[in-house]
C-alpha cells in the first residue's frame, strides 16, 4: 500500500464549502443560486471520481493541513472505504440538488438560501469525514455535520420542528461530547495516537473490560448510527424538508455515523483484536436487537416518512451487524450495504416527497390507490422497497447475500435468522403500501389519469430507482472497493 501526497482530497472536501459564499451572495436569483450548488456538487463528484483509479491501483492519497495537537494531524487519507462512501454521497448530492429544486420551489418553501447553504456545508462535512485520516479529524467533521444539519432540521421554525431539532442536537451532542470524546481522550492518553491502522492501535494497552467499555462508548457515542437506544433523534428529524431526510437522514448523516463505527472497529480496535477477545458479538447482539425492534416499530407507523425512518434505523444496524460479525463476508456485506441501501432508501424518500408535493398526503392510510395517478413514483417506490428488503433484481440483494454469507462464515447462525426475520418484516411494512397503491379497489381521492409531481421531482427518483436495479447487474466499482477494503483488513488473503 503506497501513500502518495495529493491535494485532491482537500479540494474534494472544500468544493462544497466554497460554494457556500456563492449561494449566500446570490440569494436573489434562484437559478443563479442553484447553479452554485450544482457547480459545487459536480466539481466535488468529479474530483472524488478522479481519485478512484489511483485507489483501485492500490495507492492511498494523503494530505495534512495542520498539527492540531502534538503528534495528531488534521489530515486526510483516502482509502478504499473512504472513497466508496464519498462516491455514494457525492453522486447522490447531485441528484438530490435537482430534487431539492423541484421540491422546495413547488412548495414555495421559505429561507431557501439558508437551506441550500447549509446543505452544501453538510456535504463538506460528510466528505471530510469520509477522508479523515485519524479519529480526531473524523470527530471534527462529525461535529460540523451535526451542527450544519441542525438548521435544516429546524427549517420550518414552528413548534414541532423546534422540539425535534432540540432532540436531534441533544442526542447527537450527548453521544459525541459525553461518550465519544472521553473515549477518544482515553485512547490517546494510553496509546499516544489516534491514527487509523489496519491492525488497530489498542494492542496491549487495555484490559478486556476496558476495551468493552471503550467500544460501547464509541459505538453509542457516534449516535448518528442510530443504534438503539440512541435512535429516536432520527424519526424526530423527519420534520425536515424531504430532500434533507432523503440525502442526509438516509445517506449522508446516518452513514457518517455508521462509517465512524466501521472505522472505529476496523481502524482503532482492529478486527483481529476484537475477534481474539470475542467482543464483536456484543455489538452484533445490540445491532440485532435494533434491527428487529425498529422493524416492528416501523410496522406500526402510519406516517410514511416515519416508517421510512424506522426502516433506516434497522438497515443501519445491518451494516453494524455485518462489521461486528468480524468475518470477511460480513464486512464486505456491511460496506456494500452502505451503497445499496443508500440508493434504495433515497428513492423511497424521494417518492414520499413527490407524493407530498403533488397531493399533500403524508400518511400511508391516505395514499391507497395513488398508483393510478402517480405510476412512475409508485413504480420507483416498488423498486426501492425491493432493494431495501433485499430481493433481486436490486442492489440490496447483493449486500444482504453477502451479509448472510458472513453470518455463516463466522459460524453465528443466530444472526442468519435475525436477517431473515427482518427481511420478512421489511416486506411486511413495504409491500402493502405498493399493493394498495396499485390494486386498491374502492374509490379513492386520486385521479385515474397520470398526473405526476414536477419533473425535477420525478426524474431524480426514477434515476435512483434505475441505478438500484443497475447495481444488481453491475456492482462494478463498489464491489471492487469493498473487496479491497476487506483485503486491506485480512492482508490480501
Amino acid at each position, binding site marked *: 500500500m503506497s501513500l502518495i501526497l495529493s491535494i485532491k482530497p482537500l479540494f474534494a472536501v472544500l468544493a462544497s464549502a466554497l460554494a457556500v459564499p456563492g449561494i449566500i451572495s446570490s440569494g*436573489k436569483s434562484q437559478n443563479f443560486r442553484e447553479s452554485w450548488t450544482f457547480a459545487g456538487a459536480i466539481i466535488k463528484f468529479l474530483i472524488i471520481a478522479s481519485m478512484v483509479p489511483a485507489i483501485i491501483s492500490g495507492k492511498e492519497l494523503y494530505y495534512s*493541513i*495542520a*498539527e*492540531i*495537537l*502534538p*503528534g*495528531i*494531524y*488534521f489530515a486526510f487519507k483516502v482509502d478504499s472505504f473512504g472513497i466508496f462512501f464519498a462516491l455514494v454521497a457525492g453522486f447522490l448530492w447531485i441528484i438530490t440538488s435537482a430534487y431539492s429544486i423541484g421540491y422546495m420551489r413547488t*412548495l*414555495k*418553501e*421559505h*429561507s431557501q438560501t439558508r437551506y441550500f447553504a447549509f446543505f452544501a456545508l453538510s456535504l463538506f462535512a460528510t466528505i471530510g469525514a469520509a477522508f479523515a485520516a485519524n479519529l*480526531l479529524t473524523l*470527530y*471534527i467533521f462529525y*461535529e*460540523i455535520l451535526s*451542527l450544519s444539519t*441542525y438548521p435544516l432540521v*429546524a427549517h*420550518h*421554525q*414552528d413548534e414541532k420542528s*423546534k422540539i425535534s*431539532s*432540540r432532540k436531534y*442536537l441533544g442526542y447527537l*451532542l*450527548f453521544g459525541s*461530547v*459525553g461518550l465519544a*470524546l*472521553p473515549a477518544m*481522550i*482515553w485512547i*490517546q*492518553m494510553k496509546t499516544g495516537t489516534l491514527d487509523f491502522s489496519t491492525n488497530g492501535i489498542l494492542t496491549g494497552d487495555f484490559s478486556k473490560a476496558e476495551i468493552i467499555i471503550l467500544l460501547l462508548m464509541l459505538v453509542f457515542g457516534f449516535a448518528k448510527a442510530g443504534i438503539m437506544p440512541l435512535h429516536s433523534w432520527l424519526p424526530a428529524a423527519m420534520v425536515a424538508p424531504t430532500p434533507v431526510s432523503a440525502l442526509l437522514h438516509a445517506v449522508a448523516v446516518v452513514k457518517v455515523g455508521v462509517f465512524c463505527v466501521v472505522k472505529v472497529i476496523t481502524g482503532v480496535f482492529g478486527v483481529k483484536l476484537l475477534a481474539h477477545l470475542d467482543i464483536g458479538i456484543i455489538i452484533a447482539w445490540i445491532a440485532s436487537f435494533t434491527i428487529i425492534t425498529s422493524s416492528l416499530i416501523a410496522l406500526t407507523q402510519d406516517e410514511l416518512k416515519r416508517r421510512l425512518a424506522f426502516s433506516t434505523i434497522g438497515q443501519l444496524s445491518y451494516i453494524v451487524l455485518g462489521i461486528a460479525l468480524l468475518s470477511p463476508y460480513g464486512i464486505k456485506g456491511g460496506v456494500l450495504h452502505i451503497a445499496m441501501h443508500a440508493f434504495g432508501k433515497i428513492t423511497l424518500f424521494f417518492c414520499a416527497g413527490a407524493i407530498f408535493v403533488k397531493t399533500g398526503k403524508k400518511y400511508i392510510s391516505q395514499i391507497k390507490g395513488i398508483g393510478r395517478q402517480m405510476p412512475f413514483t409508485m413504480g420507483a417506490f416498488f423498486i426501492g422497497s425491493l432493494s431495501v428488503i433485499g430481493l433481486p433484481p436490486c442492489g440490496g440483494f447483493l449486500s444482504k447475500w453477502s451479509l448472510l454469507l458472513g453470518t455463516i462464515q463466522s459460524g453465528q447462525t443466530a444472526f442468519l435468522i435475525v436477517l431473515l426475520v427482518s427481511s420478512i418484516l421489511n416486506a411486511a411494512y413495504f409491500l402493502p403500501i405498493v399493493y394498495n397503491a396499485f390494486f386498491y379497489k374502492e374509490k379513492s381521492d386520486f385521479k385515474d389519469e397520470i398526473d405526476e409531481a414536477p419533473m425535477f421531482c420525478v426524474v431524480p427518483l426514477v434515476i435512483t430507482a434505475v441505478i438500484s436495479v443497475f447495481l444488481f447487474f453491475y456492482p462494478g466499482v463498489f464491489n471492487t472497493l469493498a473487496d479491497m477494503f476487506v483485503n486491506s483488513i485480512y492482508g490480501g488473503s
Partner: protein
Amino acid sequence: MIHQLPGLIVIVPLLASLAAAASGWVNRKYPFIIAFLALSFTAYASISMLIYTAGGNVLTYHMSGWAPPVGISYKIDALNALVLTAIQIIALINLPVSNSYVKYGFEKKEAPFYGLYLLFITGLTGITATEDAFNLYVLLEVSSLTGYALIGMGNTRSPFAALNYLIIGTIGASLYLLGVGYIYIKTGTLNMTEMSLMLPLLKDSSTIIMAFCLCVAGILTKAALFPMHGWLPGAYSNGPNASMGIIAPLTTKVMIYVLIRLGISIFGVELFIESFSLSNFMVNFCAIAIIAATLKALYHTKLKKILSYIIIMEVGYMAGGFFLGNSDGTTGAIIHIINDAAMTFCLFIAAGAITSKFLEEDIRNIRGIFEKMPFTSLAFAGGALAVIGIPPTCGFFSKWYLIKGGFGAGQYLFAGALIFSSFINAVIFFRIFEKSFFSDKNHHKTPENLQAQNINTNKQISEAPLSVVVPLVSSLGLIIFLGLMTGKIVENYIIHLI
C-alpha cells in the same frame, strides 16, 4: 532592540496614556491616534518576543539597570509571551470597537477614556511581564483602578457595580499583598526567581503556608472563581460597551496567569501542588464552581449576564486545570487563557453590538438577529461553539487537554463537570439561537406572504458599524486559527514550561 522590549512594552503605553489624556485638549481625534500607535507598537513588541521565546528562550530586562534584589526585573518566557500577545492583540483590535461606542456614548470624554484604556492595558501588561512580586501588586492596582473607572462609565447601574467591584477587588489585592509581605519577611527578596530558589527550603514554615493561602485566595478573588465572583456579573453586564471589549476577556485571564505564575515560578509546582496537598480539594472545589456557574448562566436571560457567568465558569476550568498538577492540566489551563480571551472577546463584542442595536438585554424579547445582523450572528455563533467546545474552534482543544488532565489525575468529578458544562452551554446557546436568531414570522407558503417576506429581509439588514464588524469577524478567524495552531503552541511554548 529585542532585549529592550520587555521594558518598552510597559513604558510605551504608560507614557502614551498620559499623552493621550493631554492631547484631548488639542484635538479630540488625537487620543485615538495615540492609542492606536502605542498599541500597534506593543502588539509588534509582543509578537517579536513571542517569536523570540519560541523553543524556550528567555528575555530578562533590569529596569534602569538595577539588578534584583535591589531593582525590578522583567522576564519574558514562553508563558507570559503568549499571554502578552493575547493582551496586545485584543487591545489593538478592540480599539476601533471602543472608538465607535465612545464617539456616540461619551462625546467629549475621548481623552480620559483613551488615557484610561491605555493605562488599563499598561497594568495588565506589567502584571504579565514583571518578575517582581511587589511590582505585580502595583500594576494590579493600576489595572484595577482604571478598570473601576472604565466600568463606572456605563449605564445608571454601573457606578454601583463598580463600587462593588472596587470593594471586593481591593480585598483581593490586599490579601495578595499580605501574602507577598510574608514571603518577603521570610526570604528578603521580591524577585520571583530568587523566591523560587528559597521557598522549597522553607516549605514547613507556617509563615509560608499562610503566605501561600493569602496569595491564592487573593488572586482567586480577583479572578472571580465561584463563590468569590459576586462582583463580576454586575460589573460586566452593566459596564459600557466601549470598555467591555478589553475588561471582560482580559482581566480574569490575567489573574489566572498570576495564579499559574505563583505556581510554576514562585512556589514551584512541587510545593504548590504536592506539599500543600491542596490539589484534590481545589480541583473538586473548581468542579463545583464550574457546575454552579454553568447553572447560574442557564438561569439568566439577559445576554450579558449569561456571558458573565460563562466567564466565571471558564475561570473554574482554568483554575481547576492548573490545580490538577499534571502537565496536561497545566497545558489546558495555559492554552485556555489565550483561547478563552479570544472567545469571550468575540462574544462580548457581539453581545454589545446586539444589545445596542436592539436596545434590549433580555434574549426572550430579541427576535431576528440573524436577519438583521448576519455577520454579528455568525461571529456570535462561532464564539458560542467555542464555549461549548465544538471542534475545530479553539475551545475544543483546551477542553481536550483539561479533560485529559482530569483523567490523568484521576479527578473524574472535574472531567465530568467539564463535560456537563459543555451540555449546559449547548442548551444555553442553542436556546439563544432558537429564540433570538430567527424571527417569529409565520411561514405560510402563500406567494404574497413569500413576496412580502423577501422585501422585508432585503430591507432589514442593518449591521453594526464596520469598525465593530471587522474586529468581530477577525476574532472569529482567531478562534479557528488558534484551534488549528494548538499543536504548534504546545510544542513551541508550553512544553518548555512544564
